[in-house]
Structure formats: structure tokens, C-alpha cells
């Protein structure tokens, strides 16, 4: 009874080790989106990569086990024999649960630490770790973070720069090497602001100031999409001409924008807007 057990286990173990190593090596070669344009996207790429590497051995192990047992433990054609009479092995079960628990806790730990690190390298004066800050209480400018309001409406995103007398723009321009605080709000239904290369996604709710953070590291353009079903043009609600530009370019751009905005009767900047009218019936 013991002998075949051990041989089976040994074969499986060796094959599993070899294939897992191969898989992990391949996984290490991957370079995953969303890329390296911001601290957040670097973190997310790294986490995705880490998860792929962690899940490779699991995947290999399960598939290997299924295939192996299908071929090794086959019922002879036409025969009707019973397998060995084993009702379980407590030590093995405990070990299994413990291992999965440890892996899960590691993952959760990484996630939580990254949550808190979401604003690392930023010089926020507020003591509250931004990831743990409830939405709304970061409405004012803190430290040297650039405050950008994202206004979602059916079906376009516009952007207001609170620090520059709340000028409004069709496209999102950000200076490089800056800490940006996004205040995402909506003037009608739910949308979700997804700046893909920046690694930013946050829902836009009417009457809510949803705060999220990004630290830009590289210049370049990025795509903005809506990631929450918002009606007929949800799919078309995207803008590929957002860009992270150098500080100087940003300064010139924002001054030009302020000039253009002079002729527009914009309302005073507010953290969020309650859409009106609430029309029902005709």
C-alpha cells in the first residue's frame, strides 16, 4: 500500500516542480499593463505579475494532478473494481487549509500595504493615509497635490482644475512627477472614470466627491474610458488624447486654457453637483 503511494507522489512532485519552475520563469518575462506611467500603474503591473507567478504553480499542480490520476488510476475496461477504502487524512486536510490560508493572507497583506502606499512618495500633509480616507474629506488642497475634478456626464468626461480658478477642459492634461488628487463626480447617472495607463479607476456618482490619487512618473498620452454602464453611448465614452506632459508644457497649456475659458459662464467650483431638474412625467 505504501510503496505505490510513494512512487505516484514522487513522480507527481517532480513533474510539478519542473513545470512550475518553467511556468514561473515564463511568468517573470511578462511585462503587464497598465504600464509605468504612474506609481499606481507600476504597483498594479507588479501585483498582476506577482499573482500570475503565484497562481502558476497552483494551476500546474491541479491540471497535472487531474491528468495524472486520469491516466494512472484508470478503471480497467469492463471491470468494476472499487478503489482503496480511505475516508480522509486529517493531517493532510489541516495542512492544505493552512497553506491556502497563508497564501491568502500574504496576498491580502500585499494588497493592504499597496492600498496604504497608494499615496507614498506624495507629500501629503494630512496624517490619514489617503487610501483609508473616506471620500469627501480630502476636498481641499493638501500639500502640493494638484486637485483635478473629473465631471462625468452622459456621455463625456470634462475636467476642472480647482487650483486654477476651476477652469474646465475637454481633455485631461497632467504635469509629470506630480501628485494628483482626482475628485470624480457625475451630473447624471453612474459612470466610472478609467484612466487606463495611469492605473486609475473610480466611479462617478451624482452628488458624491469620489477621491482617488495618482503620482505621474512618465510623460505620454493615455486613454480615458467609462467603465460603468451609463447608457447608449457608454462604449463610445472614451478619449484617447489625455496626456502627461512636462511641468513647463502644462503651465503654458493651463494659462491658454484660462484665456479660452474667460468667455464661458462657468459656475463656481464645487466638490460635487446635484443634478437638476429631476424631471418626471411630461
Amino acid at each position, binding site marked *: 500500500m505504501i510503496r505505490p503511494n510513494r512512487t505516484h507522489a514522487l513522480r507527481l512532485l517532480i513533474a510539478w516542480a519542473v513545470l512550475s519552475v518553467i511556468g514561473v520563469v515564463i511568468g517573470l518575462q511578462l511585462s503587464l499593463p497598465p504600464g509605468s506611467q504612474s506609481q499606481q500603474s507600476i504597483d498594479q503591473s507588479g501585483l498582476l505579475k506577482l499573482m500570475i507567478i503565484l497562481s502558476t504553480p497552483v494551476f500546474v499542480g491541479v491540471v497535472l494532478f487531474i491528468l495524472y490520476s486520469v491516466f494512472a488510476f484508470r478503471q480497467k475496461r469492463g471491470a468494476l473494481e472499487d478503489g482503496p477504502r480511505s475516508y480522509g487524512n486529517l493531517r493532510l486536510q489541516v495542512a492544505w487549509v493552512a497553506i491556502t490560508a497563508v497564501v491568502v493572507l500574504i496576498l491580502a497583506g500585499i494588497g493592504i500595504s499597496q492600498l496604504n502606499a497608494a499615496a507614498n512618495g506624495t507629500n501629503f500633509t494630512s496624517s490619514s493615509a489617503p487610501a483609508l480616507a473616506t471620500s469627501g474629506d480630502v476636498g481641499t488642497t493638501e500639500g502640493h497635490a494638484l486637485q483635478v475634478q473629473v465631471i462625468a456626464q452622459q456621455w463625456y468626461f470634462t475636467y476642472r482644475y480647482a487650483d486654477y480658478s476651476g477652469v474646465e477642459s475637454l481633455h485631461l492634461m497632467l504635469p509629470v512627477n506630480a501628485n494628483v488628487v482626482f475628485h470624480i463626480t457625475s451630473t447624471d447617472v453612474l459612470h466610472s472614470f478609467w484612466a487606463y495607463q495611469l492605473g486609475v479607476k473610480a466611479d462617478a456618482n451624482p*452628488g458624491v466627491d469620489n477621491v482617488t490619487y495618482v503620482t505621474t512618473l512618465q510623460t505620454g498620452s493615455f486613454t480615458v474610458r467609462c467603465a460603468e454602464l451609463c447608457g447608449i453611448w457608454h462604449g463610445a465614452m472614451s478619449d484617447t488624447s489625455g496626456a502627461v506632459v512636462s511641468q513647463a508644457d502644462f503651465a503654458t497649456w493651463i494659462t491658454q486654457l484660462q484665456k479660452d475659458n474667460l468667455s464661458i459662464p462657468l459656475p463656481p467650483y464645487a466638490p460635487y453637483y*446635484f443634478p437638476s431638474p*429631476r424631471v*418626471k412625467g411630461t
Partner: protein
Amino acid sequence: MAAGNVAEPAAPAFTHRGMPTLATRSPEWEPEVDARVARVGTRIWIVADVFFFAAWFFAFFYLRALNNNYDWLPAGTTHPTRGIGAVIVLLAIASAGLYWAGARTVLAQRVTARLFFWLALIAGILCFGVQIYEFRNLGFDPQQGGGYPSVFVGLKGVWLFQLTGAMLWLAAQIAQTRPMGDVIIRPKSAVIFGNFMVFLAAIALVAYLVLYFV
């Protein structure tokens, strides 16, 4: 529960218009099984109903805490008079209590049981009427917006809906206390149903405290 322990009399051959009732005809009619099933099922149903009402109370406190656009209680909106609400709650409690009392005596004296059941039914119907009256004189219009009016109408509405169902069931119970009713099942299901009446009354009480005082 107490009446659940009442020893079952051997199933007598009750007949109705010369025909045996459920008690004696069903080949696998087992009184204790039916009683157990009814007890377990009612408890599960009551827990499910707790979840149902929990959603409404969650809505109340959630919207009240958010107070979006300062429109939880729109300007000029006032709570309905507490007197009417109290009447509704008392009637609901009275209905449940009377029913409970009747369910106790249902094995011993059928006559008192029927009396109690009738009183419970009347109390429930009165409760229904008063609630309708309150709806017609709210003092605010949910169509004009506001979180409180919405929750008030919704919570009271679904409660009234369940009360209506309970009253129909109660009427059925009264009908079953007639001589040709299936008297074997009755005491069990009567006590079980009492639990639900008490549950509804409790919800009414909590809703009263929440909607009129918080």
C-alpha cells in the same frame, strides 16, 4: 412551543358532508410530521422576512445618515401624527395577542377559540383601515421627493401588504374552526401562525419607533 407538546388525540374520523376530511383519508398523513414541518418552515419563513424588512430599515438609516442634498426631510415636511401611528401599532399587537390567546385554547374550547380569532380578525381589519386613513392624510407627498417620505410609504406599504395576507390566512383559520374543519392540523398550525402574527406586530412596533421618533 407549549401547544406543540400537547398530546395528539388519535385521529378521529371526522367527516364533512359524508366525506372523510384530510385527517383520515391521506395514506401518509402523520400529525407529528406535519406539526414539525409547519414549525420549522414558519421559523425559516420568519427569518427570511426579517431579512426582507431589514432592507427597509437599512434604507431608512442609510438615507437618513447621508441626507443627500439636505433633502432627507424636505422643507415643510413633518412626521405624521404619532397618535395614528400608535393606534395602528396597538391594533396590530391586539390582533396578534388575541390570536395567540385563541390558539392556546383551540384544543380545549373551540367556541372561545373562534371568539378570539374573530376578535383578532376584526382588530387586524381595523388596523388596515386606520393605515389606509393615515396614507390618505400624510401631510407630505412622496412625489415631491425626500428620503423620509419615500421610506415611510415603502416600509408601511410592504408591512400593510403582509398584514393583508395574514388577515386572509386568519380568515381561513376561522373557517377551519367550524365543525367540519380539519381539526387535527388546526391547533398546531394555529400556534405556528401565531408566531407570524407576533412577528408582524413586532415589526410594526419597531417601524413606529423608527418612523415617528428617530
